[in-house]
């Protein structure tokens, strides 16, 4: 009388219940199908790029030979790189300041720093346009990469509050006794900062850097308002290419951008997981 007993799924075994499988499947589909379509059609052998005509790498070759597209890509990476470094330094320092010190107007400073996060991007863009047109015009005709200054400054101003927020959250878990221990053992303020505080902030710094880099790399709105004719970034360039037609070249360029961000994110996350796990004291 051996009977196959079919086990019923337990109450928390969601993945064994079909409605949830459907939801998860649909979610993944809607998240990734557009991206996959974009990537697939970058290999499409058709100028109009509406119907699949056959596999080709021509448009990758075309994209790589498109000087202005490459220039835009280099511009974007350069801006993102500088923006990341400056944002991490500025963001980390402001996080430490807000965490460590009490001073009059601290609430105002904190709120003011969160502002670029909540203000609509279009307003930030217009504000930057006005700022660089009227208040502090960025000199025209500077050699590369100095001509990217205005865009870079604009990017830093909206990216560093994100870094500050992430680092601040990390600092909340800092054990002040570590700092005292370093001083007790003979370290100066400066050594204590580098030897104890910075290693503790490191995961926050990496996460913040990733945020700043990706925010800067794919920003369109603010860049659109601050870019000049000779300072085109990648998203702006893609947009201008779209106005003529959606060729697989645009798809190819976008695919490259996706791959670059995914790889960089993976590297960043990997670096973060290398960090020795800390016991909560």
């Amino acid at each position, binding site marked *: 009388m051996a009977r196959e007993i079919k086990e019923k799924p337990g109450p928390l075994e969601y993945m064994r219940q079909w409605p949830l499988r459907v939801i998860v499947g649909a979610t993944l589909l809607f998240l990734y199908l557009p991206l996959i379509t974009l990537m697939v059609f970058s290999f499409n052998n058709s100028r109009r790029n509406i119907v699949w005509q056959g596999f080709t790498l021509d448009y990758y070759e075309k994209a790589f030979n498109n000087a202005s597209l490459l220039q835009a890509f280099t511009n974007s990476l350069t801006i993102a790189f500088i923006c990341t470094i400056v944002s991490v330094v500025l963001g980390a320092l402001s996080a430490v300041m807000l965490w460590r010190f009490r001073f009059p107007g601290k609430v105002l400073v904190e709120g003011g720093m969160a502002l670029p996060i909540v203000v609509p991007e279009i307003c930030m863009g217009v504000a930057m346009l006005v700022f660089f047109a009227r208040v502090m015009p960025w000199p025209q005709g500077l050699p590369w990469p100095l001509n990217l200054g205005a865009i870079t400054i604009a990017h830093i101003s909206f990216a560093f509050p994100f870094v500050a927020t992430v680092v601040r959250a990390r600092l909340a878990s800092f054990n002040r*006794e*570590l700092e*005292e221990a*370093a001083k*007790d*053992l003979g370290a100066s303020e400066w050594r204590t900062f580098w030897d104890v505080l910075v290693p503790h902030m490191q995961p926050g710094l990496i996460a913040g850097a990733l945020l700043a880099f990706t925010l800067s790399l794919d920003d369109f709105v603010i860049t659109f308002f601050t870019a000049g004719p000779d300072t085109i970034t990648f998203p702006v360039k893609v947009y201008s290419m779209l106005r003529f037609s959606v060729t697989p070249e645009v798809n190819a360029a976008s695919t490259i951008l996706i791959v670059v961000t995914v790889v960089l994110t993976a590297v960043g996350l990997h670096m973060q997981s290398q960090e020795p796990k800390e*016991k909560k004291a």
Partner: protein
Amino acid sequence: MTDAAPSNTPAAKPAPHVKENAIIRFENITKRYGKVVAVENVNLEIREGEFFALLGPSGCGKTTLLRMLAGFETPTEGRVFIDGRDVAALPPNKRPVNMVFQSYAVFPHMKVSDNVAYGLKMDGVEAGEIKRRVDEALDLVKLGGFGDRMPDQLSGGQRQRVALARALVKRPRVLLLDEPLSALDAKLRDQMRSELTSLQEKVGITFIMVTHDQDEALAIATRCAVMNRGVLTQVATPADLYEFPNSRFVADFVGSVNMFEGVLDKDEQDHAIVRAPELAAPVYLDHGVTGAKGSTVWVALRPEKIEMHKRAEGSVAMKMEDAPAGSNVVPGIIRDIVYLGSETIFEIELESGRRVKTFRSNLTRYDQEDFTWDEPVWLAWHACSPAVLLS
């Protein structure tokens, strides 16, 4: 102030490495945070080589005092001397003291050996010397061979040893310990207690420990200071603290005690009598008390100093051989029994309704006397046992 007679002052713990010079001196130290007074007019000298304990309930100011030595707090008033030198102007990283923190504060991103080497590196000691001293320090705390581990691969007790080695490797004049045993489990705590004592004897450095655990202080320290609400209440050896407390606070905080309020009825050179309303018999003492006749005093009786005897209905009170008939013996009824293995705690209700605690060691496996609930008993004590407190 105490009722200490010279004849029964117990010998201090043997501590041959304690020297005469005061390595730490607090002079009229007061610390205020706004209107809150954390430490009030503390004067204290700690001699070189002592294992000194600052004991008190939480918030009594003991940690503030310790942090003043380390340089993390500055006194509002008064001066702190380390080795005869006023340290007011010295920042923490320039002081000849090192601290073992309550959370151990072992740097989580550094190997054990790098943790221990950190202080030496800051001092600019050359690499070969650092390695030698780090190995030596790790051996001292029995962590030889653990140098390459990361702190998260260590147990709580091992991390504490790293913190100890890290502080001792700098050969400080004074080692400060902030609640060193509070984060360990009971078994490990007992072990670390004796290890701390032997470590201190081996290195000969002055140790100053902050603790709220009176058992810990009594067990480890050569001398203790009891603090209450920012004020130093008593500074004495552990035995003196326990047997000759100078106030109700100390008697109550250190160990367990039965306290009775009474009136000083007679105060002669060689004996004194206190009448406490809660006790059916007068308390006879075999020494004088320096108090005015008729003044309010408190009689403190440690539970283990109370004898318990069977009492048959209608029997006459037993007589203690060192007290006049009728004194130092009161009737009561056993109301509660707590069996603890090595001893048993009895709670006895007196005729006044007051409950009194007493211990009996379980000397044999079968208790011949077999005390049980609701049994009438006599409680008796020797004339030298109660401590009379004037405040």
